[in-house]
């Protein structure tokens, strides 16, 4: 546990001091400014547009955070040969867990900054306090920590950074299209073979399904989030993340470095 905390703390400090951190904050500022601008083009839906575009901005920033602070920092550590020094003292699964916790903290920081800024913008321009954004922050954290877990697994499998980043973006896109994909293929299934349909269904179960964390429309419409779906999403997040990190630890343990 001590190892995990030390590694996580170092990851956090190192990331905050990185120039990329400041760069991403500026990018976030730009995206929020764009949200405010976009809202002026609406017909009285200012709060709605700020929240919608702000949530998209939050997701974009966190995708970059996952790739740059999650995946890239791992490769950079290996390139500096610092990984060997650390793995001399820290068990490999603990290293993965520590690094992951550090990355998760950065994702939490960025999500909270984005969420708070969005709340203020909505209040300032839209004239309404959007408390639903707390949920948006939570689901954002769930989504991108899970994606971070995917990046960690690819790293542990020995995949190069470029391929890892491409695959993480691919998983991000696929993970958000799961429901639509299954629905489309079910429709296609009428014309295709049942085998096709079953294959698509199986893939949809195996791949990370970010659709489960999508409550954006409910948040925008100030609706009560369905508690059963919330519970299901949290349970899914926990179990999938645990599986990813366990697999990553196992892969790193069995890999020649």
């Amino acid at each position, binding site marked *: 546990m001590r190892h995990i905390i030390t590694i996580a703390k170092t990851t956090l400090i190192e990331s905050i001091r990185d120039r990329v951190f400041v760069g991403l904050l500026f990018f976030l500022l730009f995206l929020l400014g764009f949200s405010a601008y*976009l809202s002026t*083009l609406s017909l009285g839906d200012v709060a709605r547009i700020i929240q*919608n575009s702000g*949530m998209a901005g939050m997701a974009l920033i966190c995708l970059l955070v996952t790739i740059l602070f999650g995946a890239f920092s791992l490769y950079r550590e290996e390139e500096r040969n610092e990984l060997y020094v650390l793995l001399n003292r820290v068990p490999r699964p603990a290293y993965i867990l520590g690094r992951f916790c550090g990355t998760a903290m950065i994702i939490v920081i960025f999500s909270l900054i984005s969420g708070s800024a969005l709340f203020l913008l909505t209040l300032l321009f839209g004239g309404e306090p959007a408390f639903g954004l707390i949920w948006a922050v939570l689901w954002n954290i769930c989504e991108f920590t899970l994606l971070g877990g995917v990046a960690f697994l690819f790293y542990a499998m020995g995949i190069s950074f470029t391929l890892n980043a491409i695959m993480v973006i691919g998983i991000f896109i696929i993970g*958000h299209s799961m429901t639509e994909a299954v629905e489309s293929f079910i429709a296609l299934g009428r014309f295709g073979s049942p085998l096709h349909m079953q294959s698509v269904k199986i893939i949809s179960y195996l791949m990370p399904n970010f659709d489960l964390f999508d409550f954006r429309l409910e948040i925008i419409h100030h609706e009560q989030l369905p508690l059963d779906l919330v519970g299901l999403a949290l349970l899914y997040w926990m179990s999938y993340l645990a599986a990813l990190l366990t697999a990553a630890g196992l892969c790193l343990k069995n890999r020649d470095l």
Partner: protein
Amino acid sequence: MKKSLLLTFLFYLAAVAISYSSQTWFKNPLRDDLRLEPPAAKALEYLSLDHRGLLADILFIRAIQHTGSLVWKPLNFALDSPWKYAIMDRVTRLDPRYYNAYLFSAMGLIQDFDDILLARPILERGIETFPESWELPFWLGYDFYLYQNDYATAGHYLLMAAEKPNAPKTFFALLLKTLNRQGAYHQAQILISKMAANQPPGRTKIVYEKKAERLKHLARLQDAALLFAENEKRQIYKLDELLQSGLITEIPTDPLGQSYYWNEKQKRVVAGKKNITQDKK
């Protein structure tokens, strides 16, 4: 270093100037080459990566710009109703609970007489999604009344709106007129009975009650006239024919002091001053 900075600034300035000029030269906010057919709603759902709300907002803004351009800019492109309603269809499919999008489809977006026909399927979905809303059926009915002169459809939606909770009573008069014009006396009678029930005792309540009684009479006479036409394979010329054929026992007295007669042009029983020329027939 300073030179490079200056050069960077100059290049940037040039780029901004070009961007500004292009917007000045090409004022048309929706050029024909950019007015692509919107992809299917399912494809847009894929594209949005679960940010359906944002994509709906962006498309909605495009539709607003398209319509708004007509108001404050010289019209240098054809108004494309099928395009703008296809966009609104995608908007409301991406975010089915986007109330303002439905409302806008029936209000600001209507520019052509037939626009309401394009808006109708969108608003039907809106009515289904927001069963409590009186505004959506009201505007749908109002547009059919105003642009299509289709009183039957207008009456259907206006009545639907009137039956919603929180529906303002102010548009009941309009509805009543519409129902009257289409000859839907049964529906009109239900409506005015409701209006009478909502009124506090007094002169207006009495008038409403009398009008309700008149509509009851008209409804009965209209039903008999329709039955006559069905049996005899022709329209009646005057109400007496209904008495002779035994379909009614008497022509009721109008509580508001007017008479009932058959209006051949409108093909319905109406109340008013007796038209002598018609009776002569």
